[in-house]
């Protein structure tokens, strides 16, 4: 058995960097993204092999799945823009290219490139050697965690670390997600499907079947997170995937969700987490110090709210931007801003 596992390990160890190299070397971007998704799936397999099921779930859903979807969506947007501009000013671009100087940049710096590469290789060899030389620290913080598990109110060690011992980190991490949603809204508007893009009817009926199931699975993952692999992020990722499916199937109700409701859904997790942290101080502990008896309940509450927010955030990130506001003034303002005028308007 162990020789089979060793063989499996060696295959994985070799496959991961090879895939990484192939995906960067591939001239076709679509192929690169698909390879990236498969790399993500292989990585989640690796996490399972390394006894990290929580991470495997998160990687498969978020790292491979949602990130891949984001890349494909971005690729599509880029191509659409390139197509439309190609149709518009083909002659102009041809002229520009003829007059452009040849690309001397890359060819003229082989020495610098060679030196940098050498430095990198040297550094990596040094790193590898030092890793080999390091004596493995006995379990790191593992024994400490095991020792204190009784006071956490949960049975899963990873959940205990995430929401008890290092709950402040998780609070900030939830803020990072909120920041990403806020940022994508500040940058651009939601992608509108082109008139010729109509969702296939099969997809629509499949979505109608799958989405309720996914919601149930997400709820289960959040619930089970206190004792097995699971938790807010994994549940939230499944909810996000459900949201992405709804967007793909172009279910009209999704695009008509009022912006205010969407905003509240996005902040539900961060706000509740923050308020719970403050409430703990109010009760008389430190920040995020749950009362020992009901710690499990607090954690479940926080995780549920966070899972909902994470799902909405991930779907919003896929949607690509802020929803259309009803005011016509904003519309006019947007048209002006997208033309990017800088007539000394104070930068």
């Amino acid at each position: 058995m162990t020789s089979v596992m060793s063989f499996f390990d060696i295959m994985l160890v070799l496959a991961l960097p090879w895939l990484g190299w192939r995906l960067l070397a591939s001239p076709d971007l679509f192929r690169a993204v698909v390879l990236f998704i498969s790399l993500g799936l292989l990585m989640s397999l690796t996490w399972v092999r390394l006894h990290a099921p929580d991470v495997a779930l998160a990687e498969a859903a978020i790292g491979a799945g949602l990130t891949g979807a984001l890349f494909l969506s971005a690729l599509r947007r880029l191509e659409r823009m390139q197509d439309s501009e190609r149709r518009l000013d083909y002659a102009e671009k041809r002229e520009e290219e003829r007059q452009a100087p040849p690309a001397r940049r890359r060819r003229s710096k082989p020495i610098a490139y060679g030196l940098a590469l050498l430095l990198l290789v040297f550094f990596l060899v040094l790193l590898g050697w030092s890793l080999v030389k390091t004596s493995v620290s006995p379990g790191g913080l593992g024994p400490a965690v095991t020792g204190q598990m009784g006071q956490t109110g949960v049975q899963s060690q990873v959940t205990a670390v995430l929401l008890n011992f290092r709950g402040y980190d998780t609070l900030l991490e939830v803020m990072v997600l909120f920041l990403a949603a806020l940022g994508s809204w500040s940058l651009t508007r939601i992608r509108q499907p082109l008139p010729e893009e109509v969702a296939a009817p099969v997809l629509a009926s499949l979505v109608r079947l799958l989405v309720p199931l996914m919601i149930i699975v997400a709820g289960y993952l959040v619930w089970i997170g206190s004792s097995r692999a699971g938790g807010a992020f994994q549940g939230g990722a499944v909810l996000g995937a459900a949201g992405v499916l709804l967007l793909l199937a172009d279910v009209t109700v999704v695009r008509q969700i009022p912006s205010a409701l969407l905003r509240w859904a996005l902040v539900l997790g961060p706000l509740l987490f923050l308020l719970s942290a403050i409430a703990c101080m109010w009760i008389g502990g430190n920040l995020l110090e749950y009362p020992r008896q009901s710690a499990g309940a607090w954690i479940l509450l926080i995780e549920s709210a966070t899972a909902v927010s994470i799902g909405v955030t991930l779907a919003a990130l896929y949607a690509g931007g802020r929803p259309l506001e009803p005011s016509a003034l904003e519309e006019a303002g947007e048209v002006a801003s997208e033309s990017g005028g800088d007539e000394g308007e104070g930068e």
Partner: protein
Amino acid sequence: MNTIFLYNFSGLALFAIGLHGLIRSSHLLRKILAANLMSSGVFLIMIVGAYGTDKGMIDPVPHAMVLTGIVVSVSATAVALALVCLVQETTNRVLLLQKRKKEQGRRTDA
């Protein structure tokens, strides 16, 4: 546990390939892919460090760190991709370092 230790080198290789891609690629999308590769490499090294020698002695702190890292990574990627689309929109180029535009076929990178 020799074969588990090999994963360290796998992570190192991923980091190196990602770093090389981040610096040398000219297409912005490829740079973002490379950045994701780099973080995957780092995560791999972290989780391998958490794998205990005896059964059941798994250090959960790196697992929590990697979970946080994955979420942070997807957030940064989402912002980066939105920004790439905007850059393309306003400057008509996605090749960050190149001063001229090359004629591109569909979905190909120069």
